[in-house]
């Protein structure tokens, strides 16, 4: 499995490793205001972050993520922020190993991905 999410310091991190691609962010209803104009968010090819998420919204988001086979993990926000910056799976892998989390093989994007 390479689909994970994490809730740290009020931020929701949704991320993938290996061959897995990030889910379509349109799956979240507009009412949750996750990736809409009225929230602070970031997206990279391998991680999406919503900042300062409300408790109730977080609960709803978790249900949707679990329905999409995303697994909750507990990682430090530093590791996740670094993953946003450089997409370096090596470092994330180390952190996940330390946290005893099952991980997918190391590759960010498929080489034959359309450009």
């Amino acid at each position, binding site marked *: 499995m390479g689909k994970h999410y994490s809730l740290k310091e009020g931020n929701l991190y949704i991320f993938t490793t290996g061959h897995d691609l*990030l889910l379509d962010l349109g799956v979240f209803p507009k009412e949750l205001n996750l990736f809409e104009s009225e929230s*602070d968010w*970031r*997206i*990279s090819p391998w991680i999406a972050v919503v900042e300062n998420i409300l408790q109730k919204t977080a609960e709803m988001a978790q249900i949707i993520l679990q329905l999409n086979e995303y697994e909750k993990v507990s990682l430090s926000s530093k590791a996740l922020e670094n993953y946003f910056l*450089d997409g370096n799976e090596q470092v994330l892998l180390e952190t996940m190993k330390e946290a005893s989390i099952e991980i997918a093989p190391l590759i960010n994007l498929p080489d034959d991905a359309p450009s």
Partner: protein
Amino acid sequence: MKLNFNYLYFQYVLKEGVRDLQQYQIGLAASYLALILGLFYFIYAVKYYFSSLTAIRLFSLDTFKLPKEHIFNRILAPRESVQTPLGDEPWVSIHLPFFNELNVARRILEACIEINYTNFEIVVADDSRDTTIEILRDRGWRHCKPIIKFVHRKDRAGYKGGALQQAMKFLHPLTEYVVVFDADFVPPKNILRQFIHHFMIHEQDVKPVAAVQGYQLHYLNRNENWITKSVRAEFSGSYMVERVTEEVYGMMKMVSGSVFMFKAKVLRELGWTQSITEDWDLTIRLYLAGYKVVYTPLIQAPAEIPTTVRRIIRQRMRWAEGHTFAVRKYFFSVIRSGKLTLAEKLEFLYFAPYYLQSCIFIIGSISWIIAQHCKHHPSFWTPMLGWSLVLSNFLAIPIMGLTGIFLEGDLVEDYNGVFGFIVLSYFIMPYQAYASLKGLFESEEGYWVRTLKTGNVTDHFLGLKIRGLIDWIKNLRQIREYDQNKIQIPSMFQAKNILAFSSLFLVLWPVLELISGISTGGNLVYLLDCFIKGVRNG
């Protein structure tokens, strides 16, 4: 009865005398004011004419015959020299500030993806409130190479500067250079390599280079209406003529909001501020920190032009207010700084009241009209002096614009834009004057008014303008000989020479008028007439 009549007559004479005296004083004061402001404006005009002459000279030379380290060669640095192999290039982060860019978001993202470079990422700093967000959420961008990061803010704190500062937080750790494009630009494929190349050329400079500024080629919708044509001519004068001259003489150059590459280390150190003219604010701070900006017209990215007078006015009002506010904020720091060269300080002094020119023009013109009406002038004032000043000042920007579009090879197509710009500048002037005064006296800057981008394209950009510069310079002589043989135009009637002669004439005329007025009290024609008669009479 007689006494009464005398008394009335005396009163009448006294009244007339006072009126005459008042008229004399007002006329004289207005004359002096008009003259001082006219001469102040003339200083700007001289720079424009001087810039036109310099640019014509620069682009007429066969720079390949000059030493490699010659400033002309550094500005027109040949692109075919040293290229870093793909994969070994320094890491570049392209920053795209977005605010409701529905019409152009996809276009610029696609253009950036096409850039011929390996080690780079794109960071979209988004403040949108409309459906632009749907474009950004599109899954397709996540399958692309290079990496695209989207950073959205729910507020617009700090406007564009705030968004760019937010983007700085999410730079790839290996980033060595940061490039900024506004959303309406379409960067060409080789642009990053060109930027890096110019940094390499200036690597050994005594003063470290913080940024390389390219040419914002406002071109994509130039044929949409007379306004777009006018602005195209204006920008051509500024980027092909004025900035080139500033580069030649090592003056202060501005980082202009888009199409520039910054050293990431310097940008991390200086950061973006929340100014409504964040680019000018950053420029001043980088010079205060001991860095400099390099400009080249060879790096060109085509862009859209605002299409309505209202949009232009709002854009220019923001520029005028923010610019003047920043000048007020940093003026004495710049003047006292030991890190700016004399040429840089002089350019700052020249550029500082740039938008206040509108006020100067309005007050000067009114004073001139009053002086003409009162018919009382200083002894050296001649009507010719007034008219020569008016004409010189009036034609300075059009001549610079014509020179710019001539150097780009678009004179025949775009010359009428220059006349449109004259009209447009009169529309803008009172608004610009008001905004610059606001910037001068307000305690806090106003708010950012965005310029809507429509996404309309009337002219596709097919490569480097500047008459296909490199090839043009290489083949200049052959083409010229061929054209001359074919059309038989005497050299003095060639566009280049006409522009150069008019520039010289328009600078010299008011100066000679002033000299002749002060020394003889007559105008130049009278002086010449006396001289000729004197010669004839031995």
